[in-house]
């Protein structure tokens, strides 16, 4: 790496952003391999269950018996945790080793975007295989269940990528609250989040606005709905950045 010693500052910044990404990927098990392994394990479990039902019920199984499946939702929750954990563990190391918070944030955001794309596209490809094989030979819908069943694969890739992006940046906002103020702040954060969600529900009920909410979800396509998460994702990213600017590494 000595060859770039005299590179201008812009190159240095690029190098540190890349270095941050490499720190995240230094041990790829947590962020890449484990989620896929768990996903395939859940798929295998589902296949066995479908098989046992088919064996027991014979021809009496409805055509659409195996289209409602939430196995993939695990990935979303897992990614919130992964994002929060990854930032909590690498921030003190990378910034402690003399990287600016800005370069660390950009590198971390880049790896979260790359991971979202990787899982989004990967799942869409698997959904394609699922369709080509008649639902793994069992009429099952694991990767594109229920309301995703009839969508083109590129839409499925976009939808998953958008949801995962939201999860990653939600996780990073949570992580920075922890980095900045420690465990008590996290408890207060979740308490405030729960209260505001419940409060919103009460307000909607008081104003009889639930049908409007329902219409919003039925009148827009899943693709559109997934794109509507972007402003929330960006807001999470901005909050994470603003809090990180004044955070200090541990140790």
């Amino acid at each position, binding site marked *: 790496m000595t060859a770039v010693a005299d590179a201008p500052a812009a190159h*240095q910044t690029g190098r540190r952003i890349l270095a941050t990404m490499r720190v995240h990927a230094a041990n790829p098990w947590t962020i890449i391999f484990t989620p896929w392994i768990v996903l395939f394990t859940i798929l295998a479990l589902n296949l066995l269950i479908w098989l046992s039902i088919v064996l027991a019920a014979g021809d009496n199984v409805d055509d659409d018996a195996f289209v409602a499946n939430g196995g993939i939702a695990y990935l979303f929750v897992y990614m919130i945790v992964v994002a929060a954990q990854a930032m909590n563990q690498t921030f003190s190391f990378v*910034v402690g080793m003399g990287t600016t918070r800005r370069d660390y944030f950009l590198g971390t955001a880049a790896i979260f975007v790359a991971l979202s794309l990787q899982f989004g596209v990967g799942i869409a490809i698997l959904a394609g295989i699922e369709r080509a094989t008649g639902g793994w030979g069992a009429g099952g819908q694991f990767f594109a269940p229920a309301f995703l069943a009839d969508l083109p694969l590129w839409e499925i890739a976009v939808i998953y990528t958008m949801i995962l992006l939201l999860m990653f940046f939600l996780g990073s906002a949570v992580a920075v609250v922890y980095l900045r103020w420690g465990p008590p702040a996290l408890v207060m954060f979740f308490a405030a989040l729960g209260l505001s969600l419940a409060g919103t529900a009460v307000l909607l009920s008081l104003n009889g606005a639930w049908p409007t909410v329902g219409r919003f979800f039925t009148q827009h396509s899943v693709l559109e709905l997934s794109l509507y998460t972007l402003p929330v994702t960006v807001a999470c990213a901005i909050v994470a950045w603003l809090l990180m600017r004044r955070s200090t590494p541990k*140790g």
Partner: protein
Amino acid sequence: MTAVIEVADLSRHYGKVRAVENVSFSVEEGAICGLLGRNGAGKTTLMRLVTGQEFATTGDIRVFGENPVENADVLGRTCFVRESQVYPDNFRGKHVLRAASHLFPNWDAEYAERLVEDFRTPLNRPIKKLSRGQRSSIGVIVGLAARAELTLLDEPYAGLDAVARQLFYDHLLADYSANPRTIILSTHLIDEAARLLSQVLVIDAGELLIDSDADVLRGSAVTIVGGHAKVEAFAEGRDVLGWDSVGGISSVTLTDLSDADRAEAVKAGLDVAPVSLQQLIVSRTRGTNYSQEARS
């Protein structure tokens, strides 16, 4: 000579705790500066402030002439290694060195490999499972092989055995001669590190007590030993740092003794002995009441 670090009226308070209080100093290019003081004196906070990891409450910090906070240019020329460095849970030694090779522009991979052999650092074991000394050796390797223009080492060899510490001093001096840089070294093993230092900063309870050229400081104090009455008479009216009495014999540590003063002491039949840096700093930082109590 140009100043690499310039600190003016710097304070860092955490609520009511004054971790660093109104500190001003500068460190010249090429200096090996010892940052000394007791546990909790504010050494680590000061280093964190200089590297932009901590935010100043008041005051001004210039590193390479600029504010270090979020300054990629300044931080790119700096390497800060500390005993308390936090590593990601799943990291092994090799991951740290790989990350360091990506983060530090002047990283010398060959030199790092040689250091790994010398220190016998296990690179394939999870950091969490390493002993304190082994973990320290990883920090030392990063600090040396990063070849950063400004290198800050905070208790870099805590837990290292005597052989490894000697290795560290030898490597530091040899590499410093081959690749001159500015080094700030905080340590509790003052006498071991003393011969390396060109400048000494002593901080106590957040305040800067001593900022001195190391040689000047070493020559600044002497211990006068002799019969209690004679020592008492000689010390009268002088700047007393420490006082010890055993039986009828007393020894007193004095500063600011001129050559004439020393001659006078010798003439009075008293022994004049040099004071080690460590003794000097211990007497300066053990609390002002201590010497009074020992005396009475």
